[in-house]
């Protein structure tokens, strides 16, 4: 496939709110189940080890008219739960046999209980993640949570999830994470070759494809885009942060790029780059998943920073290692984690004299002109400032 074909395929998967890829996978694997998960993070390895398809659900985006979902939410709640409910109530998620709601914020937490009530025939689990990072405390609790999920999925799937199954799945996801890291690295080196609007789609395909297929797709994208030389522009290199749950519309990402920014790191669909390195494949698969989560995972606003000194360090590292010149805080309206975190991160960036700008969006934001103007002014100011 050419790079255009790869992107086109990914775009098709992204736009398909009927989740046909999931249906096709199920048709090809009679009796196998598909399990949805919401942002930010669940150990997909356990779902995969059960012979099931993990499916990332990031709301309905800007392609769905939310009617029923709005009847469940006040105007001051973000949009992702209402469009997710809309998908559920319209039967678009019927292909899923269960849904996982990881701990991220109170809205998604409460949605887990709503799902229990509204979709009684489905497996529904609130999946708690530890905020204590000691192996013997938070780790023990987390392993117990994972064991409970393993038990539930074993019973749902009608077969025991063995340690061997888990090890195989960890290896599969290690490879997937490696490919994703390669893509992030490639974009940071040559952002003109891997525009974020394309990379986003390639990664988003990982929400509905089996990880093995997605890994191959990511690598194919890298090799195909490398073949096709694209013009390099004098854009500002920026990190985009705050978009880890409700996703901005694709048009917004394109607008930022068109305004003169190369996004060289981001936190879209953070699950795919959550664990920062390989999870060792050994005798204690859940123990290793736990250690990776506790000690070698991305920092984001729904995770507690144990010490004041830890705050913002992950972002500063991103700025440094990716060679970024500024940070764009892009947060969904009414997103408590991102919006409460933002002033703290801004203070740290200011201390390090790293320029930043901030705006809010919703997954169905339609007016891009203000975003383009703001991002353009930001890019210009970086260029003028660094030239001075």
């Amino acid at each position, binding site marked *: 496939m050419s790079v255009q074909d790869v992107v086109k395929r990914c775009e098709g998967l992204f736009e398909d709110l009927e989740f046909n890829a999931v249906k096709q996978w199920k048709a090809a694997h009679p009796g196998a189940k598909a399990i949805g998960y919401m942002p930010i993070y669940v150990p997909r390895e356990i779902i995969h080890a059960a012979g099931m398809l993990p499916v990332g659900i990031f709301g309905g985006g800007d392609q769905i008219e939310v009617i029923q979902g709005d*009847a*469940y*939410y*006040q105007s*001051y*709640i973000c949009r992702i*739960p209402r469009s997710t409910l809309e998908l559920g109530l319209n039967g678009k998620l019927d292909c899923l046999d269960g849904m996982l*709601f990881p*701990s991220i*914020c*109170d*809205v998604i*937490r*409460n*949605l*887990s*209980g*709503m799902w*229990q*009530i*509204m979709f009684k025939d489905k497996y529904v*689990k*609130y*999946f*708690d993640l*530890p*905020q*204590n990072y*000691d192996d*013997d*405390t*938070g780790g*023990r*609790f987390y392993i*117990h*949570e994972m064991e409970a999920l393993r038990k539930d999925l074993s019973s749902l799937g009608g077969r025991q999830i063995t340690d061997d199954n888990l090890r195989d799945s960890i290896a599969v996801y290690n490879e997937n994470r490696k490919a994703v890291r390669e893509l992030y690295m490639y974009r940071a080196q040559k952002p003109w070759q891997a525009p974020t609007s394309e990379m986003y789609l390639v990664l988003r395909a990982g929400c509905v494809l089996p990880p093995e297929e997605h890994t191959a797709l990511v690598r194919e994208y890298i090799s195909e885009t490398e073949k096709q030389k694209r013009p390099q522009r004098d854009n500002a290199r920026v990190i985009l942060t705050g978009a880890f749950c409700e996703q901005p519309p694709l048009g917004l990402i394109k607008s930022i790029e068109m305004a003169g920014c190369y996004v060289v790191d981001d936190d879209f669909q953070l699950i795919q780059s959550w664990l920062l390195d390989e999870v060792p494949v050994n005798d204690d698969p859940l123990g290793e998943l736990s250690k990776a989560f506790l000690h070698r995972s991305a920092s984001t*606003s*729904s995770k*507690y*920073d*144990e010490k*004041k000194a830890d*705050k913002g360090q992950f972002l500063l590292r991103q700025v440094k290692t990716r060679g970024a010149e500024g940070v764009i805080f892009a947060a969904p*309206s*009414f*997103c*408590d*984690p991102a*919006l*409460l*975190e*933002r*002033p*703290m991160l*801004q*203070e740290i960036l200011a201390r390090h004299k790293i320029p930043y700008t901030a705006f*809010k969006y919703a997954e169905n934001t339609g007016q891009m002109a203000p975003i383009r103007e703001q991002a353009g002014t930001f890019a210009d100011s970086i260029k003028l400032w660094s030239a001075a």
Partner: protein
Amino acid sequence: MTTATAPVPTAKKEVIKEDAMWLQKELINRNYHELATAHERGKKVAATFVPGNLNELLMCFDLARSLPETNALQNAMRKKSGKMVLDAERDGHSEDVCTYVKADLGMMLAGEKGPTGEALPRPDVLLLSYTGCFTFMKWFELIRQKYDCETTMLHVPYQGDGRINPSMREYVVKQIKEKVIPTLERVSGVKFDIDRLRGYMRESQKAEDDLVRVLQSAKHRPSPIDGYFGAVYYIGPIFTAFRGVPEATRYYEVLRKEVEERMRAGKGPVTPEGDHPGEKYRLVVEGPPNWTSFREFWKMFYDEGAVVVASTYSKVGGVYDFGFRHDAERPLESLADYCLGCYTNLNFPQRIDMICKYMDEYQADGLLINSIKSCNSFSAGQLLILREVEKRTGKPAAFIESDLVDPRYFSAANIKNRLESYFQMIKQKRTSSENVHRH
């Protein structure tokens, strides 16, 4: 996240209060004075949140206790919070986030004067009990960022499956033992004594028994209390710095006797304008109250003859009416169960079950939801609660919107209109049901 405490309104005209309410006011004001003078008396100060507060444990280290939600709501009742919220927004905080947080940060920006006008000291330690509210975590990270004070995190897992499993309890106990206690020992310089903790917990239990009797008195007709507007006074001491203190035990004993006396006399609740004009509607309320116009809000109910017989908000700092008590025989496990069992740590099916139970046991005419813009922990999903409760009980439910401490979100005319329509609806429903029975 929201929480309760004893409001101390400053009104120009004379406000009618029960004796227990005066006592409560005295306790709350005394705590502010103790906080103001803590450092000069050589005492260290801890800040912690109402849901999942470990008051008995903090007292074991001789720490003065400050509760930021309480400070915010006290400021709101004194009409001070609007400016604080605006100041925090001007300082870079989003208009979308919790106004308790912004009122607290605004208070710091204005020179850290507490609600009573006395200085509020900088905390020496933040006990971040992450119970039932995500915002708590960011709130204390924000304070830590500003003050650089020691912070100890107690992560309380959510009852996603509607129960407390042993792993959850073990996780909380382990954190208390290995993180919280060592930090408090270090900050305070006081060695932990489990028997001292047990002593406080025995005291807590007595107060909890009396509080439950007070809250359950509303099953009586007419109800001698208002289980929402009145209850926020009643829960003040036990939800804040006084659980486990003998004065609080005495307060609840006085309160219980007062309420029992009202019940014997066939009296309704005491309102700020005197005796309740007569019980016409019995309601269950879900969600926290608005604090900026608390009296005006309450008046809209009693003027129409409405009494709130039970509320979920009065369980935000501990659900005692379903049997939980602090247990001196298993102190740390019991503290864990307390945190795990607070109302906003319950999942949706549990919350709905609780409300339906209240509707039945307190013979309520309907459910009213006061949805708070600031508080996703309560608000996200409340419209489903409304539908489910209506479906299960056959009783009418209504929905109003306001905010905790941001006066911009209290629209008196809108709320009054909705309430009046709602009371009409209850009346009609009652009449039609009586007609059905008659024929």
